[in-house]
């Protein structure tokens, strides 16, 4: 498994459980400080979240410990490894590509209201097509421009959603385009 591209290895096998446990412990601390007034014989709004958090901590501690023991070569005869054969097994994803795509999305969202929907989306769609491995630039640019215009048309004229027009010169560009699309 460790030789498969993108598969979890070594410390990574235990890390997620430690992180989940840590986050749950922090949230449990927060849950102890919810402000409310409940009758003495009744459960408060912290009851349900605390129950969930205890379950998360117990499950992640169990699984983390089991993986730690099995990683150290201890025979895990006493531990139950309840796995199910699944038709959903698939090739692991290359996380570098995934995070490049996430980074592109974050930049897109950060600029969404500044640059406006049109320009921001054209560049974003173009970058996604590029990340996806499509390398014909002019075709990709044409596709991203047409796709963005179609999105604008559908969302502005069919679903009636006000898309951001941006600020400064971007606002002028967006409003000109919207005029062309018949949106006033």
């Amino acid at each position: 498994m460790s030789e498969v591209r993108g598969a979890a290895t070594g410390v990574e096998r235990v890390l997620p459980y430690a992180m989940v446990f840590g986050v749950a412990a922090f949230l449990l601390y927060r849950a102890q400080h919810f402000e409310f007034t409940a009758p003495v014989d009744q459960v408060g709004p912290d009851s349900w979240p605390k129950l969930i958090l205890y379950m998360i901590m117990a499950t992640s501690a169990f699984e983390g410990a089991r993986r730690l023991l099995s990683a150290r070569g201890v025979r895990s005869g006493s531990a139950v490894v309840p796995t199910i054969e699944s038709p959903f097994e698939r090739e692991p994803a290359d996380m570098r590509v995934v995070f490049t795509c996430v980074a592109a999305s974050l930049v897109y969202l950060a600029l969404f209201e500044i640059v406006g929907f049109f320009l921001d989306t054209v560049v974003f769609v173009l970058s996604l097509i590029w990340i996806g491995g499509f390398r014909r630039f002019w075709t990709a640019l044409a596709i991203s421009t047409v796709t963005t215009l179609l999105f604008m048309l559908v969302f502005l004229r069919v679903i009636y959603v006000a898309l951001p027009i941006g600020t400064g010169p971007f606002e002028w560009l967006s409003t000109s385009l919207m005029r062309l699309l018949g949106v006033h």
Partner: protein
Amino acid sequence: MHTLQLLLAGFAEVFKPLELLMMFIGLLIGMAVSIMPGLGLVMGVVLALPFTYGMALAPSIILLTAIYMSGTYAGCFTAILYRIPGEPMDVPLLWDGHAMTQRGEAAKALGWALVAALTGGLFSTAVMTTLATPLSNFALKFGAPEYFAAVFFGLTTVVALAGTSIPNALISLFLGLLVATIGTDSTYGTERFTFNSPILANGVPYVMVLVGMYGFGEILIKLGQSLHIEAPAARASTKTRFPSLRELWELRATFVRSTLLGTILGVVPGAGATITSFVSYAIEKQYGRRGDKIGTGIPEGIVAPQIASTASVAGHIVPLLTLGIPGSGATAVILAAFLLHGVQPGPFLFSNPESTLVVYTIMASMFVAVIGMCLMGFAWIHVVVKVLTIPQAVLAAIVIMFCLVGAFADRNTVSDMWMIVIFGTLAAVFERYKFPISPMVLGAILGPLAEDSYMRGMITYHRDWTVFFTQPIAGSLMALSIVSLSYPVVKALLARRRQTTAAVEYPDL
């Protein structure tokens, strides 16, 4: 009013222009997304969700249900003709379907798939339509403990069938339930886990979890997997040839077995079309008259999985309508559409004539959808399979845009788009560490219902938690939940014991 009368009234509604148009569009979308590897029917309903915001309830649900229904069928074309499974549920169709194609029997294989989808879809819809009113009457007896137990049962079966390790599935589920607690608590008005953020004060809309994890996240994973699909080697004919009556009669046992299995498994939360399809194929291989020949290109290998996957649709829809509990990703999106229209599915839907008509309109639409998808598959599939020629990178970019702009359209706020990216990234991380996504999504959707019934139960019975186990219906459902959770553990223990015994008896092996 009698079920049949209600159903006829439903048919009258379905044949109105807008409803019919939505069904047509839904069937087309369902076909297109299900033959495209990397999309899938859940993605189809997720992407169509924003377009339902401005529609009335009935056409919205008809659109989504039609996508769901035809999504279980159209994948058979690419699986049988090109050996490209559009969805995991189509994988069993490869083995026998494509083997028949290689022998020059593609038209016949497609004919068997069509008859199977038609039979499974119609039978299961008829059974579920008949059971809808009795089920809703039964559900009316549910108090808080029973509702909690029903939701608990749904969630535990999702965990048990999530297709990965049970601890990972449990953590995923608990995280989903935890996400649902963010925001202002409905009983006491207390802010929970909001960190003084006004965005979080209203909670995390489960639509964002749903679209983020099933839509955006799925595409991130596909991009990470290089979006590799093999292009069809040659243009195969999409012509369909129906089996003769004699051939159908010979496979009667397979038809009956798979239809019943698909319908029953459909009701089980978590057992989506994929699991149903695989189980039906395995059962046919084990108990079928020609089980030993399954995999070599015989019709039973097409009929069994195809019937079961299409039959599972009605099996999933009716518990959603009568109990308000979705058992699969697609029904979770349909639940979201109901809630976005201010309607809570459940037994009370049957208590007023207007909403009862909506329910039976949806059921009638399922009958029409089954027939419609078969007709469209028969006549137009050669047009629909052309989506395979769209570059995957372009398709991925378009889907991501649908997810983001669709999220923005819900409340006109960029914060919802941020949530999509956060949950999408989480889905990719889940995939890497083999945490299943479905339990988290269903946890986020059912969390408020679970908490509400838990709180009501605890308040009504003065903190006596045994009430969830001692009431007859609730206790039975809790017992079933424990069985469903224990089953994979017991199975793993038995497998290990067998391995240990074999190692002791045959140390040289």
